[in-house]
């Protein structure tokens, strides 16, 4: 096929190109001389430049890059979110991996490659790029989850293997589902599928439905929706905290972005059957995710379950449909990403520099307020944001979701949301109050005393300020999203 490369096409392609170039530079640097801080600096600079390039890409209007990718406002928004998540993970890694005995630099390499996958997913408008992006995103993550397994507990390796097997199975499902859909529709691009769908009656095509079901299963695995959530808490627990931050934010957001684009462009989410499946996932995720978190004593596992519940809330917006739903999803995901970066950032900071294990038990955080008041002042609003209490971004997100649900009159889903939130409050509060209880034992793990001056600390504080700002005065962010979408 003849690809015409004009300047504006080139500019829209820049974010992807810059990250790819950074990967090559980092790879070459590592092979010449290992220098942890330099590698980190180059990665962060590359990601920042890519983020800047996203801004220029938004100026170019809608651009099609080959039949596989499209760069429109939607793609730019999710590219930006992926890049910001990657940046956060990179800055956290810097302090975290300092004390790691073996080679440290490859972590950045894997992170950057996974970021490319996320960017591809955000721009994807074709089943092929959907799958390619998914694999570029997932495969490096296996390595990242297990990165510290030599010196740490066995959980890291267990998590990685679990993630690899379930993720590979999910990919296989998606691939087979695509093949089945292709058999019925004869096209792999989203727009071509939309055309083909117009010519058939959805409920008369069992092969198409089977294919769609397999794609749903695969995506549900990646997004850890109940009942495909079993890997989530183990992987969250096993992964090093910065990797957890990336996994929870960039990886999930990118998959969700392409999934939403696929459903909305093909209009499949308005088929009653598909809608019922989404409702099923949503209700189960909200209730089971929150219920399973109740008795956990491990902060990372709590976050894993909480992310299950949050994607359950998010599906309400998708079920509601309509032009409003994209705005809802964007706002909710931004709030979700900011909050998760904050919480996992604090875990990473408390666990830095890397020792035998991460500080992930609640008991490690007992009395944190009395020895690290400002770090607690970060973690408290973050937990409240997860719970959806006003003054935080999480509340604005939940407000939007409820708004969408009320508009579409999804009373059962909203009922489940209320029950889920009430359950959620219990375990989020348990975490919060632990921070303020008097410490009863000498603590082993603690953030280094200069955490606030390290780049990770600065990043976490900035995230908190942004998160609270979004909760108190969301209008600028709403304007931005309306402008972009």
């Amino acid at each position, binding site marked *: 096929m003849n690809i015409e490369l004009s300047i504006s096409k080139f500019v829209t392609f820049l974010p992807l190109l810059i990250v790819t170039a950074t990967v090559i530079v980092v790879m070459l640097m590592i092979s010449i001389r290992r220098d942890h801080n330099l590698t980190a600096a180059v990665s962060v600079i590359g990601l920042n430049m890519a983020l800047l390039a996203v801004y220029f890409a938004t100026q170019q209007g809608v651009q099609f890059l080959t039949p596989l990718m499209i760069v429109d406002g939607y793609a730019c928004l999710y590219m930006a979110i992926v890049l910001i998540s990657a940046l956060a993970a990179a800055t956290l890694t810097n302090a975290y991996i300092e004390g790691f005995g073996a080679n440290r630099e490859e972590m950045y390499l894997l992170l950057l490659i996974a970021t490319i996958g996320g960017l591809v997913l955000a721009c994807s408008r074709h089943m092929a790029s959907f799958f390619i992006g998914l694999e570029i995103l997932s495969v490096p993550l296996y390595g990242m989850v297990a990165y510290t397994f030599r010196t740490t507990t066995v959980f890291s390796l267990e998590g990685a293997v679990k993630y690899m097997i379930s993720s590979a199975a999910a990919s296989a499902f998606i691939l087979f589902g695509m093949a089945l859909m292709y058999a019925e529709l004869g096209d792999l691009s989203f727009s071509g599928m939309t055309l083909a769908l117009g010519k058939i009656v959805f409920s008369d095509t069992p092969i198409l439905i089977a294919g769609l079901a397999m794609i749903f299963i695969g995506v549900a695995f990646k997004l850890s929706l109940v009942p495909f959530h079993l890997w989530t808490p183990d992987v969250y627990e096993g992964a090093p905290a910065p990797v957890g931050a990336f996994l929870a934010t960039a990886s999930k957001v990118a998959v969700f972005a392409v999934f939403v684009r696929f459903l909305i462009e093909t209009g499949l989410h308005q088929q009653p059957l598909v809608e019922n499946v989404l409702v099923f996932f949503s209700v189960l995720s909200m209730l089971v995710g929150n219920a399973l978190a109740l008795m956990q004593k491990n902060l990372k596992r709590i976050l894993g379950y909480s992310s299950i519940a949050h994607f359950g809330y998010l599906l309400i917006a998708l079920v509601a449909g309509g032009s409003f739903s994209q705005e809802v999803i964007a706002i909710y995901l931004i709030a979700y990403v900011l909050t998760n970066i904050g919480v996992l950032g604090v875990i990473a900071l408390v666990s830095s520099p890397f020792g035998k294990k991460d500080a992930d038990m609640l008991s490690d955080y007992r009395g944190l307020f009395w020895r690290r008041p400002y770090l607690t002042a970060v973690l408290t609003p973050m937990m409240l944001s997860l719970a959806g209490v006003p003054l935080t971004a999480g509340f604005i997100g939940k407000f939007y979701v409820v708004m969408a649900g*009320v508009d579409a009159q999804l009373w059962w889903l909203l009922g489940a949301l209320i029950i889920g939130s009430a359950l959620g409050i*219990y375990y989020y509060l348990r975490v919060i109050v632990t921070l303020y209880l008097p410490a009863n034992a000498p603590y082993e793990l603690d953030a280094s005393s200069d955490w606030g001056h390290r780049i990770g600390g600065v990043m976490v504080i900035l995230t908190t300020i942004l998160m609270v700002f979004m909760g108190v005065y969301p209008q600028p962010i709403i304007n931005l999203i309306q402008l972009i979408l």
Partner: protein
Amino acid sequence: MILIWIVLIPIIGGLLCWQFEKFGLGVPRWIALLSMLLVMVLGLYLWSTGDYVLSEALIQQSDWQVEYRALWIERFGISFHLAIDGLSLPLIILSGLIGVMAVGCSWSEIQRNVGFFHLCLLWSLGGVIGVFLAIDLFLFFFFWEVMLVPTYFLIALWGHRSSDGKRDRLYAANKFFIFTQASGLVMLLAILGLVWVHYHATGVFTFDYEKLRHTPMSFEVQYILMLGFFIAFAVKLPVLPFHSWLPDAHSQAPTAGSVDLAGLLLKTAAYGLFRFLLPIFPEAAHSFAPIAMGLGVAGIIYGAMMAFVQTDIKRLIAYTSVSHMGFVLIGVFSGSALAMQGVMVQMIAHGISASALFILCGMLYERLHTRDMRLMGGLWGKMSYLPFMTLFFVAASLGLPGLGNFVGEFLILIGTYSVSPVVAILASTGLILSAVYSLVMIQKAFYGPARSEDPIADLSLREFGLMLTLMACLLWIGLYPQPLLNISSESLGAIKYMSDVTTQKLGQ
């Protein structure tokens, strides 16, 4: 601007308390005290400059005395809209007064993390004040939730074990938060439902009280949305089936927390019923009134009977709140202007008397280290002032003429009698029951043989001052309630008008 300052002073004061703890434990206490005094002074200033007169004419519009409005989230027509009228003004002044009392009574009780304690206390007061001032429904919900988190901390970090030792303070705090937060979400659903109904009818997104009041709705929609609001207010008030968080939270909170809860937080629910439920959903409220009044009567009797069997003195007082709030519920739904006035007086008087009783319990606890009445007894002979003060406030709470609570309950009963004699008669049994449990409490705690020979310190000057202030307020309301009735009459008249006109329309 003055309204913003009333909300901001506690918030800023709280932050200062937290940061200035390093200069000594006394500093946060003085900052907190001054902030709350300032709020009270601003409230009194608003009273003196506002135009509050008793008028017989029907008022058709809300009479905002001072208003502040700024755009906030234009996307949904949300504005930062504060306003004060005769309904909110007395509650603002009460907030200042109770705030001062809460700071004063924790002066010696709280020795741990003083700065952070006052941060929580002041922020929760700031949230309460915001609730009383907000007339944008989003902003109202915002403050409604904001006041919960600091209150949660107050109970969770500085609370006490239950008397029987079975449940710790975290249990009470979690229960409180989950009850109120879940019911708050139901209210959020109702608010958003109202906004969407308004949007579909007019094409305008708005959360503004004045605009939403005129939303055209079918009766069924109105009823469902009204129930959403009612559940949130019923949990907070509390109304009978939703009350179970209250005894735990009240009895296990530190004194300032109990004062804050009983004196102010419960009043936000009654305020919400007046401000939002009646004017926005008049027909639905009218047809729901018999059920609500039934719940009110049940609450009065149930609360009184539960209070009677308690051995923990703070639990006893907590259950009396359930009982007294039953009167408030009846008055709000009676639809009689007289009863509404009574509710206003009852809210203020109960806020003062319940706070005073909790403060006295706190003083007893500091001296005896128990809240169990079976371990007290014979205190009358050992202290000269504290038992007398307790008797005074107990008498107020049981409705002794001459004190504030009598005026409130009397007006509510008279007003209700004209609407529903049965309810009024049943409710008045609450007065008898309250005499029974109050005197039992006095008898158990202060009479009988003394448990030990150790001397007990009497009231200090600070404690004496706190109690005298509250006594003076109750006496003033009891003997000369007219100024208070003047403040609120116009606003309540407007609310009655709003909830009446459409009721007549329905009848035609």
